[in-house]
């Protein structure tokens, strides 16, 4: 493959035009990622395209996009794995600000609702709060989340439920509920065990399928459901 077609979603709310896709011919080089291809276009063909990125190494979560039928990180996706035609659009079901950039405001607002920080009742220690390796292991998977929003955008319950907290926020809630150092499980379960929380999840598993960190988010949500039932019954 010497060259491939890169189609980019274009939208500028200020120019009064309908959204469209523009197609560019991009020279391929070995190991090229979709993010590098976007830069190739930005640098040499069209300086007007807008997209988010930061770390280029799949740890910051800024470049989540809808690429060839799936939610992926542009920096983590090899052009070679997609073939000679690559179509890139912004994360679906979030308001588009411009081109590939979406407004993550609903995502962050819901994220805040579950109190995404450690709440410990004990006095702050001099150095840090130690944790057994065994206890830490329980949250290894959830800690890998980079808050890219791929799961949120892929979830049909998010598409249809304006208030649904969504997979990422609920995963984070479980991350703290399962953390041996955290003392606010009750508080968090109260937020989570509602119709806008875990009970809106219909185990469609899109979140687990698209997560660029291979986190099975649904598993954590199922754990929360179990804890919520236990709390209500006993």
């Amino acid at each position: 493959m010497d060259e491939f077609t890169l189609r980019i979603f274009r939208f500028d709310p200020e120019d009064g035009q309908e959204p469209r896709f523009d197609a560019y011919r991009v020279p391929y080089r070995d190991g090229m990622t979709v993010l590098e291809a976007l830069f190739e276009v930005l640098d040499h063909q069209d300086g007007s395209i807008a997209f988010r990125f930061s770390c280029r190494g799949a740890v910051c979560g800024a470049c989540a996009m809808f690429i060839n039928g799936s939610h992926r990180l542009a920096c983590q996706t090899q052009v070679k794995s997609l073939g000679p035609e690559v179509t890139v659009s912004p994360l679906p079901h979030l308001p588009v600000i411009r081109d590939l950039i979406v407004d993550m405001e609903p995502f962050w607002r819901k994220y805040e609702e579950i109190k995404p920080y450690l709440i410990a009742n004990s006095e702050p220690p001099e150095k840090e709060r130690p944790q057994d390796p065994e206890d830490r292991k329980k949250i290894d998977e959830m800690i890998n989340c980079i808050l890219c929003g791929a799961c949120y955008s892929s979830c049909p319950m998010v598409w249809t439920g304006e208030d649904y907290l969504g997979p990422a926020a609920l995963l984070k809630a479980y991350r703290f509920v399962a953390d041996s150092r955290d003392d606010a499980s009750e508080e968090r379960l109260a937020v989570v065990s509602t119709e806008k929380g875990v009970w809106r999840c219909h185990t469609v598993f899109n979140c687990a399928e698209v997560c660029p960190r291979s986190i099975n988010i649904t598993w954590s949500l199922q754990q929360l459901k179990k804890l919520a039932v236990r709390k209500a019954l006993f």
Partner: protein
Amino acid sequence: MPERVTDPSVLRRSRDTWPGNYKVGMWAWVLHRITGLGLVLYIFLHILVISTGLAGPASFDEMLHRLHSPVFLVMDSVVLAGALYHSLNGIRLLLFDLGIGVRRQREMFWAVMVVAVALFLVAVAKVAPLL
């Protein structure tokens, strides 16, 4: 200069709501919804059809005769297929709520499909001689 994309098939495939982009769990969910609605509709049709045989023994026999016509047998097969899928996938979903197989959801879907198709074929083999 970029070229404007106008190919409708490309534009269709660029959406996550396009069925070609569905993943396994999404298919399982969509099929569950469709068969669920279908089964609700069936209950009402069923009541309607049965009510045509209530005007005495003769009308009851007539109704039974109608129910054995190829059209009804084919429609029954459709109901059976939907009911099989909906109930077996329902078990899959219940197992998830018990915490079983949450990390094996794709395999569970295919297991549902294999069992549903197998039971369906058994039923068809029984019904086919009646046609």
